[in-house]
């Protein structure tokens, strides 16, 4: 037991140290690498807390895709942007606010009664009627379905925001910024070999999400990463953002979710209520459509606004 405690303490110290270093790093690139390592360690912490679903999301989205997004942002920053760092006063103020938030959260956690209030027994008790074995998927798709629905819509909104950064003459074109000028044999090979395996893992994560850690977001992120890899290597070209097909794919997930939610008024008696007999097939259909839409949205978010490579 003390061994586990020592491991947890060591992990926490590592994360704190890395967080401090990431904040004070002198170069944007160093800070991004620090951030990715940080996300990776946080994923390990989620495993230690027995929240493998969250760990999967953190590893794929928090550390993986966000890291790549930040790397792209750091690459596009003009060189003299580094000189425009905020002054010490502003940084100190931001630090104080962050510390206050952290202290507030710590106080809330420490003040919780023992045992903490929980809805977990109630939540798991009704899982069998949904045909699900993974309580996290149950909460996301059944009990807190409205949150998940809005999350999937937020991705589309974010993409619209990104696309609106395009110049007028580029509107409706292809986001070509990701394609490597000179990919090289190793990268092309990777982009040929990895995606079939990644496709398998992505679909596996979506499918297993019903009974074990996994789900639409994790599966969609892996699929998006594989797609982006082929874009970088120049094996595929991104779709025109004005195309009808890509837009249909983007809204398919949220639209199906919404349609089944509205149908819940007749079938289950309330918005987003599932009929008891067909809960599982409906949930699987929603998750499948969401996986596709999330993959396309994340891939296009990484690809950037339409316009040729500068």
């Amino acid at each position: 037991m003390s061994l586990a405690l020592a491991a947890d303490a060591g992990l926490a110290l590592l994360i704190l140290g890395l967080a401090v270093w990431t904040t004070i790093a002198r170069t944007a690139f160093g800070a991004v690498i620090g951030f990715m390592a940080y996300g990776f360690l946080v994923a390990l912490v989620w495993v230690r807390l027995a929240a493998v679903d969250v760990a999967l999301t953190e590893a794929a989205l928090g550390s993986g895709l966000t890291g790549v997004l930040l790397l792209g942002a750091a690459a596009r920053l003009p060189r003299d942007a580094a000189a425009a760092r905020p002054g010490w006063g502003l940084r100190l103020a931001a630090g104080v606010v962050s510390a206050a938030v952290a202290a507030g959260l710590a106080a809330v956690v420490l003040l919780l009664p023992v045992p903490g209030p929980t809805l977990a027994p109630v939540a798991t008790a009704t899982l069998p009627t949904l045909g699900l074995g993974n309580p996290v998927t149950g909460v996301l798709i059944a009990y807190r379905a409205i949150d998940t629905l809005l999350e999937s819509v937020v991705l589309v909104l974010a993409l619209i925001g990104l696309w609106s950064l395009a110049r007028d003459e580029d509107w409706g074109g292809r986001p070509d910024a990701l394609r490597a000028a000179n990919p090289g044999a190793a990268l092309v090979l990777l982009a040929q070999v990895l995606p079939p395996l990644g496709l398998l893992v992505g679909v596996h994560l979506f499918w297993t999400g019903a009974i074990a850690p996994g789900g639409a977001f994790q599966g969609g992120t892996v699929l998006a990463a594989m797609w982006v890899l082929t874009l970088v290597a120049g094996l595929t070209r991104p779709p025109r953002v004005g195309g009808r097909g890509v837009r249909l794919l983007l809204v398919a997930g949220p639209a199906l979710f919404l349609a089944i939610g509205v149908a819940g008024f007749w079938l289950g008696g309330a918005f987003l209520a599932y009929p008891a007999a067909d809960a599982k097939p409906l949930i699987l259909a929603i998750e499948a459509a969401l996986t596709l839409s999330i993959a396309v949205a994340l891939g296009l978010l990484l690809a950037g606004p339409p316009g040729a490579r500068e």
Partner: protein
Amino acid sequence: MSEFLLVAALCVLGTVALGLVAILRGPTPADRLSAAQLLGTGGVAALLLLGVATDTAGVTDLALVLALLAAFAAVAFVTQRTPADVVAEPASPPAQEPE
């Protein structure tokens, strides 16, 4: 057996945590990326050991996802920069220069 695997997981983590020093130290972005890569592989090994030792569902899948995305950051970085950027640490930002 699981005792041994847990200790082994800790050892791998401790080793790659040492590698964190290289992320912090650099000096070039290529070195930082190499260190991050090592952290990734070591983390995958630690997760596998942990997953088998504690028989937790999904830990192997997590390791699989990490292995799948391992090359991602390096690919994104190298293809978006010139070789000079990969090797040379950008000059440290100058102190606030008067306009």
